[in-house]
């Protein structure tokens, strides 16, 4: 086996000085060389793309776990504080029942008729009942960055709510009359993608039925606009638009992932009412859609206990948040939350008594003991610690998802807790589990069905469960969403399960495509992948990879930086002789222990470590290299700042919960209480001094209140390392055209450069109403006012000259103005 290096002389010899044709053998050699070289390059790109993906996913899941943990913690507090305690009051409102009032009373609360619309308002003025033109106008208005007036928002939502209340849990659709049904997956507030779909496929109509599979909101910045558009079409074409509920159609989740914030910012006066109405609407969204009794469309998935007959009978609106079972009307149980969260039970195998939802050791529910948060910290902390330890181990295992240890642990769990948990499950719990499974589950390659600890809800289900389920219900395909896929869609379980994701560039510009699917009477899916981009120039594959990788690594470096104290301690434990050096292996295992992110650290290390001496890393120097500017406040100790930064999402979530009037402001006192809550949750002391320091350091309005957004702003980290790299940075810029704008979290990147006009370069007129041939390629003209210095070349992502219908790519340039 040769080593493949061609000798230089072979080429030189054959150069003909008169420029005569060179023998074929040599061109072949040259071709092979180039091919060999390029394939190697592509493979390295693929590797980078792969681990970049891993980084984003594991961070996404780690964050989700955090949310679940927090919610459980608050639930626990609810059960164990006296009703009158101030801490409980801070958070009790999110657990309050909605069903106390009758609908008629609620309609009064949501009354919009006394909201005046000023003359100068130039947005759409809706009249009900809505018609197709108004719906189209609404789309156009949002495209032009207009905002619908709150009066019309409330009116539209009220009408939607009325309609949803009469819909069944299971939508049933048929492809009779040769109608093709279009199905879309997660949109996550990315209006660009919805507009792209409408442009490519046409808007919903009698001839063009649509099914939307949940997760319309959160993360992206136009969640409310997407909802309004979908609801408008639902009202106009109630027999041709079908909406499924996703796990993000849930006000608790919205607190953390941006939708609540978005609504409050856009609708300062009436945002709270709008959110309340949306809570109801979300709970009334149907759970599942079935096409021709053959194809099941659901947001998350199924489990081995999923039963459509049971699901059809549920009172779905009682489950306002899928994270929490509804309070039972009969007071028979001592603790309603004891029968919740079968998963919690299974997880706390070691010390069930200490389960967050099983507060027995702290007194029966009827006899609350007066406690302050401080008293609680110690007792709560003990059990919390154990619980967290178990969950952390769970997370570790789950991250390397299907590792052997994970499976053995979960079997340990089931054997340990089976006998006990079974007695707690009753029909109420069954119903709730059904919904949780539908909205939160993910498929896995192995057979079986295990709890989904990565997400904290739902299951992982295997191909055998799919097979069984399809047979039992006489179905042939499950279409679900919930997971981001590189190409916008992916089959699994022998092509019996299809994952469909419609938010392109989900992690970062260029990270993935979105896709929608069309099904005709033959029920064969046709795929339409796409990618919205806010760059004026199509990025090549390597550029995409590099750019996405850049963001992922940035986020990862942040994580490393904010765990500095823990990492340093871990390094020093290993480096007993205090040499200041540590070898690569130890570096990797220390990081893994501290961060609990199952990532290929050895593969990543060249990106994270600039230099080593003899295979050893100078770790102090390395931290200096990471060089992120801390949030200011030198008086506050490093570890505390790190802690706060690390848990800033949790902190912000608690703030928003505490901010009961949704004003975006909280009082000093509440702020203090919030930090104490956080302190109990983290089992870390946050002293009064620190709290005072934090209060002072935030530039408040000097009126005794703190602006939540402003406070969170103070926690931005600035990436100084970019400034250091100078010349190579320049080169990097040339490669990438322009560096991504600063984003602190792996969210959608929107270029923040100011643009004066929003120019959907895709089309000047309305989208084509008819079904254009799918192999048509769409070339887009470039936009004016391009912010990069690049040549105004036309934007192309040419349709590969293939006959395959499902490979039509279009790229639409949408330049978001500021």
């Amino acid at each position, binding site marked *: 086996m040769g080593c493949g290096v061609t000798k230089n002389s072979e080429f030189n010899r054959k150069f003909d000085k008169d420029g005569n044709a060179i023998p074929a053998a*040599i061109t072949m*050699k040259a071709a092979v060389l180039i091919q060999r*070289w390029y394939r190697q390059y592509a*493979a390295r790109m693929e590797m980078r793309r792969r681990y970049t993906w891993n980084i984003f996913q594991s961070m996404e899941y780690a964050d989700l776990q955090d949310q679940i943990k927090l919610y459980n913690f608050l639930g626990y507090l609810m059960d164990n504080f006296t009703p009158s305690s101030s801490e409980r009051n801070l958070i009790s409102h999110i657990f309050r029942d909605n069903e106390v009032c009758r609908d008629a009373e609620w309609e009064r609360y949501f009354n919009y008729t006394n909201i005046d619309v000023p003359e100068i308002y130039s947005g759409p003025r809706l009249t009900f009942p809505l018609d197709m033109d108004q719906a189209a106008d609404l789309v156009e208005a949002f495209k032009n960055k207009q905002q619908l007036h709150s009066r019309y928002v409330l009116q539209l939502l009220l009408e939607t709510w009325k309609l949803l209340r009469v819909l069944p849990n299971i939508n049933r659709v048929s492809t009779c009359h040769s109608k093709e049904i279009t199905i879309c997956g997660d949109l996550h507030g990315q209006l660009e993608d919805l507009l792209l779909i409408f442009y490519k496929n046409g808007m919903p109509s009698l001839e063009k039925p649509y099914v939307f599979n949940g997760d319309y909101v959160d993360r992206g910045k136009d969640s409310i606009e997407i909802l309004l558009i979908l609801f408008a079409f639902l009202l106009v074409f109630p027999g041709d638009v079908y909406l499924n509920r996703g796990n993000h159609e849930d006000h608790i989740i919205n607190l953390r992932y941006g939708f609540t914030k978005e609504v409050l910012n856009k609708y300062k006066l009436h945002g709270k009412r709008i959110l309340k109405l949306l809570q109801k609407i979300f709970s009334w969204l149907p759970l599942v859609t079935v096409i021709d009794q053959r194809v099941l469309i659901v947001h998350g998935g199924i489990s081995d206990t999923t039963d459509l007959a049971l699901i059809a009978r549920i009172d779905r609106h009682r489950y306002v948040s899928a994270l929490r079972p509804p309070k039972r009307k009969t007071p028979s149980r001592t603790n309603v939350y004891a029968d919740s969260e079968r998963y919690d039970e299974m997880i706390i195998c070691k010390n069930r008594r200490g389960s967050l939802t099983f507060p027995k050791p702290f007194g029966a529910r009827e006899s609350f003991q007066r406690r302050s948060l401080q008293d609680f910290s110690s007792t709560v902390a003990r059990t919390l610690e154990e619980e967290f330890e178990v969950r952390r181990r769970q997370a570790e295992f789950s991250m390397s998802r*299907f590792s052997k240890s994970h499976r053995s642990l979960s079997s340990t769990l089931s054997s340990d807790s089976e006998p006990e948990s079974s007695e707690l499950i009753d029909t109420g719990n069954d119903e709730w589990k059904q919904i949780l499974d539908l909205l939160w589950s993910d498929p896995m390659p192995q057979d079986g069905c295990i709890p989904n600890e990565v997400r904290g809800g739902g299951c992982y289900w295997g191909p055998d469960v799919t097979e069984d389920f399809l047979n039992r219900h006489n179905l042939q395909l499950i279409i679900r969403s919930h997971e981001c896929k590189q190409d916008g869609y992916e089959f699994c379980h022998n092509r019996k399960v299809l994952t469909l994701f419609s938010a392109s560039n989900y992690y970062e510009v260029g990270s993935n495509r979105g896709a929608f699917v069309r099904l005709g009477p033959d029920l064969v899916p046709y795929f339409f992948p796409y990618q919205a981009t806010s760059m004026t120039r199509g990025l090549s594959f*390597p550029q995409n990879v590099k750019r996405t990788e850049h963001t992922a690594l940035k986020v990862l470096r942040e994580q490393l930086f904010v765990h500095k104290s823990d990492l340093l301690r871990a390094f020093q434990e290993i480096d007993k002789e205090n040499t200041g050096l540590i070898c690569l292996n130890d570096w990797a295992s220390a990081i893994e222990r501290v961060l609990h992110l199952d990532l290929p650290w*050895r593969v990543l290390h060249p990106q994270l470590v600039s230099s080593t001496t003899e295979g050893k890393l100078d770790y102090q120097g390395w931290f200096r290299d990471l060089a992120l500017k801390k949030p200011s406040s030198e008086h506050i100790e490093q570890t505390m700042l790190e802690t706060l930064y690390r848990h800033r999402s949790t902190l912000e979530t608690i703030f928003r919960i505490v901010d009961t009037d949704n004003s975006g402001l909280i009082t000093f006192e509440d702020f203090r209480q919030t930090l104490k809550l956080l302190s109990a949750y983290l089992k870390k002391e946050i002293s009064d001094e620190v709290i005072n320091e934090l209060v002072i350091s935030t530039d408040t309005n000097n009126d005794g209140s703190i602006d939540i957004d402003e406070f969170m702003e103070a926690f931005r980290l600035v990436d100084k390392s970019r400034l250091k790299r100078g010349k190579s940075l320049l080169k990097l810029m040339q490669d990438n055209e322009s560096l991504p704008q600063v984003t602190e979290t792996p969210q959608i990147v929107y270029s923040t450069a100011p643009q004066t006009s929003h120019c959907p370069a895709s089309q000047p007129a309305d989208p084509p109403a008819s079904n254009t041939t799918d192999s048509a390629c769409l070339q887009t003209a470039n936009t004016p006012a391009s912010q990069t210095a690049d040549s105004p070349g036309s934007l192309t992502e040419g349709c590969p000259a293939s006959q395959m219908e499902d490979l039509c790519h279009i790229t639409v340039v949408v330049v978001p103005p500021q």
Partner: protein
Amino acid sequence: MADKHNAETIITETQKRISSAFEVFDHESNKTVDVREIGTIIRSLGCFPSEADLHDIIAELEEEEPTGFVRYEKFLPTMTKILLERKFRPITEDLLLQAFEVLDQQKKGHLEPEELTRYLTQEGEPFTQEEMDEMLSAAVDPDKNVILYKDFVSMMTFDDTR
């Protein structure tokens, strides 16, 4: 003795690298990867095998009855040997440049996309359409619509050294 220790360390380090790279593609975490990803893994470890080379390697790695998967136990020794013997060594910038120059028979200093496409999809170990498109998207200068291969090569090899 120091040599022996060094040799051992090198082997261990090498094997750790192999294991890490393998892990990235081991989606089910069961120490197997899809055989179609073997090429990517080998190349990502710094080797430059040709398709023919890969073909031979895969034949070695597959089971008696091919399952479509390659097990780590088989992959490790094979890959270790490849790395330690430094097979499939990198292609230098100079060599690459010369290869392009060979194709540029008229000595224009650049190549037309159609030219390059013809060569790379018909000669040697032909590219698929997808591979060709990907390479063109990175290589073609959008203003002039040609491949300025000198710039292209230096840009890509700079990338290598990162």
